């Protein structure tokens, strides 16, 4: 079986500071991988290297494209990479306002990716946008409202709808539940879990919240100072951590 994403020896430094170093892993279709670590551990740098937002100093990010099969996205042309970014890939930002157009209605936000790939029928676009608002539990009556009038949780769900409307195969998520109330987080996690299953999505989720990865991720990578110190099945890494840092991380979580 061909991995959907094969990450090979990815390194990125900022001067003498290491962003991430020598990270390799394979992600298979339908798998959800979590990346945990404290602030500055390099997990966001890694995610941005994988998603093509920043160019790594070294390494390959090989994606199994629909047409040409496995291709290194680091060396592919920018138009091709950006095309992936609005078709097969999706990126959910921590702050919804980074991933939404705040001056555009909810329907326009969801419809943008459709129009970007050439849909030119207003009625169809609107119908799909309404369908997706419904799927992320936003009242379709709000379709013409701007996201500025939405709560934080709704904005995050709108961002997810906007990303998933073109049926991507790989979703990058950067702290998707960060900054949300606990009750809102639970709803979002439940929603994400359902979408991942129903659409057969693969996902890479960066978070510092171990509860999030336990519920969403099949596999887990623990990062510290730019290096992957441990990787494995999520429940195995959380219940039987091997590395000193992972043990510290797991034991530092308050029990409720």
């Amino acid at each position: 079986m061909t991995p959907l994403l094969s990450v090979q020896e990815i390194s990125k430094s900022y001067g003498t500071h290491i962003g991430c170093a020598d990270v390799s892993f394979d992600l298979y279709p339908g798998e959800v991988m979590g990346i945990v670590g404290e602030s500055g551990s390099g997990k966001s740098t890694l995610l941005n290297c994988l998603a093509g937002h920043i160019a790594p100093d070294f390494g390959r990010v090989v994606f199994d494209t629909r047409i040409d099969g496995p291709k290194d996205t680091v060396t592919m042309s920018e138009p091709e990479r950006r095309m992936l970014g609005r078709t097969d890939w999706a990126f959910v930002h921590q702050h919804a306002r980074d991933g939404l157009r705040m001056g555009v209605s909810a329907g326009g936000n969801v419809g943008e990716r459709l129009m970007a790939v050439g849909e030119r029928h207003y009625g169809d676009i609107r119908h799909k946008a309404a369908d997706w608002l419904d799927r992320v539990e936003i009242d379709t009556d709000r379709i013409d409202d701007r996201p500025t009038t939405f709560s934080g949780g709704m904005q995050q769900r709108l961002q997810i709808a906007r990303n998933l409307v073109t049926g991507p195969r790989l979703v990058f998520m950067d702290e998707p539940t960060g900054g949300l109330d606990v009750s809102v987080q639970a709803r979002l996690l439940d929603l994400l879990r359902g979408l991942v299953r129903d659409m057969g999505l693969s996902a890479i989720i960066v978070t510092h919240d171990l509860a999030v990865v336990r519920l969403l991720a099949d596999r887990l990578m623990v990062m510290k100072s730019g290096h992957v110190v441990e990787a494995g099945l999520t429940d195995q890494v959380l219940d039987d951590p091997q590395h000193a840092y992972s043990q510290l991380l797991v034991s530092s979580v308050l029990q409720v």
Partner: protein
Amino acid sequence: MSEYNFAYLDEQTKRMIRRAILKGLAIPGYQVPFASREMPMPYGWGTGGVQVSAAILTPDDRFKVIDQGADDTTNAVSIRSFFERTANVATTTATEDASVIQTRHRIPEDTLTEDQVLVYQVPIPEPLRFLEPRESETRKMHSLEEYGLMHVKLYEDISRHGHIATSYAYPVKVEGRYVMDPSPIPKFDNPKLDDMAAIQLFGAGREQRIYALPPYTQVVSLDFDDHPFEASKADQICGLCGAADSYLDEVIVDDAGGRMFCCSDTDYCSRRRAAGHQGPAFPGSEVAA
């Protein structure tokens, strides 16, 4: 002759602008950066158009300026006298007699010919700016032909108004490649952009951009399959000349709120009246459209 260099600008500057124009003609719809000069008039008064006109005028040209279709507004009068003084060129108000026509926000009603150049004054050349304020990003979107955003603007229009309410500066796609802002002309004029015999040059002074359409260029107004582009105008006829096919301005004529529609193209209207056509504004007259 005046103490100015011909057409005010120095020769090096005119060459620089001509190079930008040639590049613009070679890549229809592409915004070419140029080193816009300070002109002896404020930004917003057509400094971009004036610099383009200055770069292309020759002593033999006959120059016409229209502002919203009219030859007799302050802006049109001052630019016309500016070139009379600095270039000593002949001027005219008759569209068919002019070799260079500088315009603010209109295309003349008469069909232009291969011997004419139409110079547009452009306030904001970037059609994507409404939704994407980052210049670095809009340039990338142009270079990679990522124009989904342009339709988002039209989508927003329909969702808010039930139809595409954008009525001027209506975005077009040039030769299937670049999306271009045609300057704030009414969308009624959009079909005239397409396949025009005359050269069309666009100058944005404050924004330092020049773009161009060579003769007979394909220019298509963006739309949706189920909301096709419509070149609309007021559903009236000209009160003065009775024309039903020209773009109309609405004019308030008295303190009681009385109004009248009349041609925005003053040259077109006055020639029709000279030929004997009369509109309903003249009591007792027959509409002779």
